[in-house]
């Protein structure tokens, strides 16, 4: 059957609520409205307001309340509505959610999921399109998950809810309405297992979440120019699947990391560093990053300029210098001929 990512997420919540009475869903607008993106559509109706309810508009309150409910055995799944709206909850997430198991010597685990619709490409206004995964991935104690299709969205969310540790579940907003032919419930590889979305022998594109479909398009476009590109979808940023990434890059000898978040000090930089450390002797060229710009996320009319797109990925692939000795003295993009 044809399933959208939003439908798959809704089904995962539904099935989790059905499977375990301790699972509860709450946040701003998740009840009657079904969430601003309708991910919680119909849950309050089906399971009652005890299981899916609206809270006051206060993100720190929502996350902190969930911590307290965990102490009494519940497994809360909370919604942050939009990426940048989660920042008021940042202290609760970094000071308590991430650290509770550790600061209590393993006596208190927090089996909660914080759902964060994130990233851009939807023409959203200010504060609605941040790629905030780097903040969470940089905090020890948080698992950070980001699906790129409906089947993974279902499978990873079910696993996130069952996980004994807190999971930041990053939902690529631009892919909410993407469709896939899949039977639910879908069983996919678990946390920490990247998958190869497209096999290739010349270069590895490592990417995740919102950038996966674009990376696949770029790989197709590159094929017409004679470059055989492999696309690795991380699926979970924490835990990170070194094995799949390293194995792929050692085989292809070239790597481009693609991410919507700004490149500086971000997840893409971390991936590039790990690849450089582990694949140095296999690399034919430096590891490159194609990412969001180091500017605040722009107004919708500049979104296309800001976001990494197929052209920038193809330029990066060209910069890997197929023949002869790599020459990196030039500026990227325009200076390179892909002919």
């Amino acid at each position, binding site marked *: 059957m044809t399933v959208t990512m939003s439908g798959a997420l809704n089904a995962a919540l539904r099935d989790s609520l059905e499977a375990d009475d301790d699972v509860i869903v709450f946040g701003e607008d998740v009840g009657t409205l079904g969430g601003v993106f309708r991910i919680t559509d119909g849950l309050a109706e089906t399971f009652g307001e005890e299981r899916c309810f609206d809270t006051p508009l206060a993100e720190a*309150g929502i996350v902190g309340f969930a911590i307290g*409910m965990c*102490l009494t055995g519940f497994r809360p799944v909370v919604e942050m509505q939009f990426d940048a709206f989660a920042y008021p909850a940042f202290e609760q997430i970094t000071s308590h959610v991430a650290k509770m198991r550790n600061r209590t010597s393993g006596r208190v685990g927090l089996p909660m999921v914080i759902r964060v619709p994130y990233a851009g490409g939807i023409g959203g206004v200010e504060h609605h399109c941040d790629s905030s995964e780097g903040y969470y991935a940089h905090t020890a104690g948080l698992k950070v998950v980001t699906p790129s299709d409906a089947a993974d969205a279902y499978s990873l969310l079910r696993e996130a809810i069952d996980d004994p540790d807190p999971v930041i579940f990053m939902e690529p907003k631009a892919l909410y309405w993407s469709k896939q032919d899949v039977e639910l419930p879908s069983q996919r590889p678990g946390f920490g297992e990247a998958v190869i979305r497209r096999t290739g022998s010349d270069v590895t594109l490592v990417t995740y979440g919102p950038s996966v479909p674009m990376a696949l398009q770029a790989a197709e476009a590159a094929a017409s120019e004679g470059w055989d590109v492999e696309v690795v979808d991380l699926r979970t940023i924490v835990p990170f699947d070194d094995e799949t990434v390293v194995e792929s890059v050692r085989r292809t000898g070239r790597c481009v990391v693609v991410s919507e978040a700004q490149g500086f000090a971000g997840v893409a930089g971390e991936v590039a560093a790990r690849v450089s450390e582990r694949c140095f002797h296999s690399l034919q060229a430096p590891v490159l990053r194609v990412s969001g710009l180091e500017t605040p996320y722009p107004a919708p009319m500049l979104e296309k300029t800001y976001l990494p797109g197929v052209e920038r990925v193809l330029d990066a692939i060209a910069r890997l210098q197929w023949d002869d000795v790599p020459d990196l003295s030039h500026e990227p993009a325009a200076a390179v001929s892909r002919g």
Partner: protein
Amino acid sequence: MQTTANAAQQALLPSPNPVQLLDPTGAEVEQHGTVRDYAMPDAGRLRQIWRQMVIGRRFDIQATALTKQGRLAVYPSSRGQEACQVGATMSIHPTDWMFPTYRESMALVTRGIDPIEVLSLLRGDSHCGYDPIATHTAAQCTPLSTQLVHAAGAAYGEKRRGRDSVALAFIGDGATSEGDFHEALNFAAVFEAPVIFFVQNNKYAISVPLSKQTKAPALAYKGIGYGIRAEQVDGNDPAAVLAVMDVALEHCRSGKGPFLIEAHTYRLDAHTNADDATRYRSADEVTAWLDRDPIARVEAWLKSRGELNDDIVAATHAEAESLASDLRDRMNTDPTVDPMSLFDNVFATPTPQLEQLRGMVQAELSAEAQA
């Protein structure tokens, strides 16, 4: 309609003056201008709070001394706040939850937690030495007010489970300025969560006085805006603290939602040993508060009633002394902490990245051991 609305609003109002049942000399006082009636606790409970305050103060003084000896990294004293910490804690049941801050060491000792486990955080061998689930006591919270939202969630969780359990959450005056204080009050009120927010207004947030912290006539008034019933109490009057806690607990247990208590008290020592309190307050001010000592106050009342004699006083002080010396002895040995435990509790199951780091540290340690 107007009358009903006014009555509902009036019911939330704290007393215009802090509730006081014993004056600083230990004489019973008439309740003036209190909104509700507060019953004098019976002599048995007052003996119990007196005894626990004597032990609590001795513990506190010992902990401060351990700081000077380098055994604790830091210690935030609560000397002078005994009536609040002991009174609130001894009023709740073992199945009730407590959400302490770093200053609530005395409350944790009152709760029955081993003093050495209470001091783990400040000694530096663990962030929390006791089991929060088994003791129904959250880890001592270092960020300000963040644990109040947890208290609201836990209280609501207990209510959802159909259990008759309340959450007692402590904070100081400065922490009422933090956003999470307001979010916690609002959540607790909206979800009618049985939480007692116990504000120990000890007049200073490190060096910043209450006058620079708030323009509210009393911190207790902050309850009204959230629809939370509130009271202010003389936090150096052990009898009044117990009486107000009784009312708050009855309110929470009967399903009427949260309750806010502002206890007016004073931190006799500096914020911690790292703070120089002479820079921001006068010796006269401290002396004036020494005259409002909570232990002396209830001791005078008990003696005047023949409920306490010098023999019992001497025996209790001997008991407190023995607790202090036992703590001193146990704190004199350096705790051993396994370096490999670093990796044990980041996640329930370590990630491959953590396993890699574990391997690296293990190799380093083995190399050191062989060298």
